[in-house]
């Protein structure tokens, strides 16, 4: 306590900021708690029975497999294949999906006509397209890419459309009475107005797309984390399967938290409470 007061006296900052820092650390711990509980449960189950390494291995064995895969560059290879694929698919989906969403959103009749259809497509998961895609494109990266783009693009189109339609009519009328051209309306009203919703679409799409990617890689078997865990099954390498699963989850969290969520926060901070 005396250390705290001394420190705050020296820096001129009230002891509160140290409390706040401690609070933040505590919150960080809280996020890790469920993971620790899961590992503990897993370890308890493992220790309570006599499991063959073909069925279940200990967390320690998985850790060793992870270190091994990382050291030999295997993990980097498989993970980078998956990350490149999702990144490329996300970019292409934005480039194609946002203009389509716009075109539908600005036209009330098109929006009404296509809303049901887009929901229908959302119901047919990317994985359900795999049989057809494999017949058409074979066991290739093209198949994987098509599946992931399909999965990503539907929420992007849908949310872009919703975003455009949610822009208050008064913004458009006000700009028209200021003499704005169509291009000007797109640049100054439609694009910034729909942006928060587009980002939501991208975020949802990345979530769905990542899952579809892993599934497609499992069937296509041309690299990627899905290939890694499905290949490991053939040799009964439980440690590799679990390692791969953990990496799949971690990479998703990292991509979502470090790339997509900051973009979303930025638009929300800028747009403020007005966008409800």
């Amino acid at each position: 306590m005396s250390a705290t007061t001394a420190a705050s006296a020296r820096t001129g900052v009230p002891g509160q900021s140290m409390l706040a820092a401690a609070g933040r650390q505590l919150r960080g711990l809280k996020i890790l708690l469920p993971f620790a509980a899961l590992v503990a449960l897993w370890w308890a189950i493992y220790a309570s029975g006599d499991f063959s390494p073909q069925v279940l291995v200990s967390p320690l064995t998985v850790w060793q497999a992870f270190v091994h895969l990382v050291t030999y560059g295997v993990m980097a290879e498989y993970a980078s294949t998956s990350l490149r694929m999702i990144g490329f698919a996300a970019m292409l989906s934005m480039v194609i999906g946002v203009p389509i969403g716009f075109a539908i959103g600005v036209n009330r009749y098109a929006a009404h006509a296509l809303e049901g259809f887009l929901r229908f497509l959302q119901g047919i998961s990317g994985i359900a397209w795999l049989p057809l895609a494999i017949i058409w494109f074979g066991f290739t990266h093209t198949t994987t890419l098509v599946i992931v783009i399909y999965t990503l693009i539907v929420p992007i189109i849908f949310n872009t459309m919703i975003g455009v339609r949610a822009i208050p009519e008064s913004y458009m009328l006000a700009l028209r009475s200021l003499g704005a051209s169509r291009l000007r309306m797109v640049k100054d009203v439609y694009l910034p107005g729909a942006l928060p919703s587009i980002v939501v679409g991208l975020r949802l799409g990345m979530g769905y797309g990542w899952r579809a990617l892993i599934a497609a890689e499992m069937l296509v078997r041309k690299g990627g984390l899905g290939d890694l865990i499905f290949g490991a099954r053939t040799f009964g390498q439980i440690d590799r399967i679990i390692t791969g699963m953990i990496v799949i989850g971690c990479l998703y969290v990292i991509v979502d938290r470090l790339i997509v969520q900051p973009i979303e926060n930025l638009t929300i901070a800028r747009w403020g409470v007005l966008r409800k």
Partner: protein
Amino acid sequence: MPDDHRDPASEKIVVSGFRHFFETAGGHVQATDQVDLTIRSGEFVTLVGPSGCGKTTLLKALAGFIRPSEGTILCDGKPVTGPGRERGVVFQELAILPWRTVRRNIGHGLEIAGIPRAERERTVARLIELTGLAGFEDRYPHELSGGMRQRVAVARTWAADPDVILMDEPFAAVDAMTRLTLQEELVRLCTATQKTVFFITHSVDEAVFLADRVLVMSRRPGRIKAMIDVPGRLAGRDWESFKIDAAMQALVEQVLRLVREERGLTTPAAPAIAAGPGA
């Protein structure tokens, strides 16, 4: 309605034989009955009337957002065929863009018109001064109070320097005290800039306080049932003196009576409601 001020040069807006219908799921709805109206250059005209009487329909037609079902609207002798920079609009609901700062919202019309940056900033600075927004230039709308946001909307319209300004209940959503201030500021702004203003309101006090001429619209399908001249606007008005000015208060009474008739509250010689036996 005889118009004793006929002088084609000063006629800014001429509405003749205007009528409007809407197609709805329920069929044909007549929004307004025939409206004939002349607004002189530099005049401040307010329009009061019951809800749904077609006030906003008339304003939208003046703005060029809708085409009249019947009749013509001339602005400076030319037919209105769509929205245009010479006719600015201030809306009731927020129409300033939440992703632009105060400064960039106010300068938006000038930016669209391709005015060079230096000149744009001078105009924006002058309007920020006139509307009391100094110190808030770089804030976003969500950081402002309702009254300040509406000041930004007014300033944006004024900055684009249209000849005619159409205002649709611009102060309806702000609190009562702020509204009084905004109305006084509007009086000052209009005296300083000599715009032709067409202003819709629900408030009889506001209608008389702001106007050179108050128009009273009948209930739907609306027509203009009365025009009342209000003298002395350019000499300046404030609420304290307005409230104790007997002549002004008499005008308020007169307008109020006309509006209330339309709402069926003091209908002269209202037919007695026949109560059937057993009712």
